[in-house]
């Protein structure tokens, strides 16, 4: 299954990138992310905890970076990675070949802004895999909305909303009639972005090995030697992981009866 979309964030690209570099920010933005550690030069491990119908689940994921292209002069930064996660309780695994981009934007109304784009080639296998596309595609939009809301709140200097507290708030429930697309929520809420600039760590732009094999089967240890930019990638991957996992079990489904 191929999933691709993008959402705007009301802050300059470098600021978004900087926020990506702050683990605490990410932990608060990524639905259910409780851990994110680097295990070696090219591998990372994390843990996501979520609830489905009041049952808590824990899923571990690992990430492996296959290429990095750093943004320059308005070009987007691009991260390509393979991510694997597993939820034993649900007898399910996920593999995702992910491409994340952060593109600088400037809008006349709001000043600085950036576009966060993603493209996932998603393979969900096991019990969850047989749920079919409907649930998974729908979950993508929901998780994207949650993440974008959180990131927008951080950009705006507001507290990150806790999950569940906004139930129904942005949803295109039957009463609204207009069927507002979910992704429009955070964008519309992105009024104030007057937060002081954040120094970008690791802003040096090493000569990335821009193009790569793309086979999704990287040779261990052959990752580009760009430690300065590495954390950025990891955090980008965490976003991807959150998307992937949240798509699966980020929220109760099936409803209460």
């Amino acid at each position: 299954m191929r999933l691709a979309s993008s959402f705007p964030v009301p802050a300059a690209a470098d600021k978004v990138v900087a926020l990506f570099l702050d683990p605490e920010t990410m932990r608060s933005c990524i639905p259910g992310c409780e851990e994110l550690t680097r295990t070696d030069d090219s591998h990372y491990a994390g843990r996501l905890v979520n609830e489905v119908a009041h049952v808590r689940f824990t899923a571990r994921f690992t990430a492996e970076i296959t290429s990095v292209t750093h943004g320059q002069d308005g070009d987007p930064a691009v991260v390509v990675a393979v991510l694997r996660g597993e939820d034993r309780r649900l007898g399910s695994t996920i593999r995702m070949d992910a491409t994340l981009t952060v593109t600088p934007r400037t809008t006349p109304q709001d000043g600085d802004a950036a576009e966060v784009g993603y493209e996932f080639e998603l393979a969900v296998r096991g019990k969850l895999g047989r749920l079919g596309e409907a649930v998974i595609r729908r979950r993508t939009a929901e998780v994207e909305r949650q993440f974008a809301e959180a990131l927008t709140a951080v950009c705006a200097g507001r507290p990150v909303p806790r999950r569940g507290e906004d139930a129904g708030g942005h949803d295109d429930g039957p009463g609204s009639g207009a069927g507002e697309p979910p992704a429009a929520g955070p964008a519309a809420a992105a009024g104030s972005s007057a937060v002081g600039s954040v120094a970008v760590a690791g802003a040096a732009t090493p000569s990335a090995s821009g193009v790569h094999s793309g086979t999704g089967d990287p040779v261990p240890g052959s990752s580009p030697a760009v430690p300065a930019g590495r954390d950025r990638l990891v955090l980008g991957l965490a976003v991807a992981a959150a998307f992937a996992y949240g798509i699966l079990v980020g929220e109760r489904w099936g409803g209460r009866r």
Partner: protein
Amino acid sequence: MGWSQVSAVRVHHPDTLDEATALLRDLDDALVYGGGTAISVLRAQGLLFAQDWVDIARVPGLADLTTTSDGLRIGALVPLRRMETDPQVRRLTPLAAQTYGRVAHPRVRNTATAGGNIAHGDYRLDPPTALAVLDATVHLTSAAGTREVSIREFFTGFQQTAVAHGELVTAITVPRQPERARGTYVKLRSLSENDWPCASAAVLAVPEDGFVDIRLGLGGLAPTTVYLAYDVTPDMDVEQAVDAAIDIADSAMDPIPDIRGSARYKARLGRIAVEEGLRHCLKELAG
């Protein structure tokens, strides 16, 4: 109050509504068991983990279907089949009777309940489309008391409803269908005949002073049931009325692509369902 064990699940059998709501309040992870048609399928797939089921079959009154001064009161445990066949439902809310009669097949309709149906919260359910255009109200009860939620506000998100922890659906009330109104339910499948709808539309045309109030309930075309309404004014002919309906439906449709069709195809079927339903209603009104 009883208690029995179905493999790893504890099934509670409260004898009163108070016992039921107390269980729902006190248990951490409980599901209300009505007809069980959805629960048993999800459980068989290993995707439902609730440890406690609260079977409300013994709670008095929940299976009552009664007429009230302004319409129907449908107890949560009234089977869908009864909604389809009951003479009072057919007389007071013919659109509801027609729509309930289109759910799955008789075996499911004999078992599934009116309350469980909406609590399932699936975006493709048939009855919510009719309940939305008929302006039904959902009655939710918890240990703290009872509250009412318009069916139009009941579906809050993809497979999410307004039912909160500790609550259960106890009844649905439906105002009687206006005497001169004409309604119909159009259900379009893309695969086998007993499948979920690929797209569906309940349409009710209510003549008012100088205009016709058109109400649309769309199923399967967005993450939740969609309710829409607009007026057909005397200066509009049927084609313009249809165009307006399609325009407004188009603005609200957000179909999820799956094995039953792409988003584009589902929207196409949605437009056809709306058009068919509306033409039928306007023709009946004119005739």
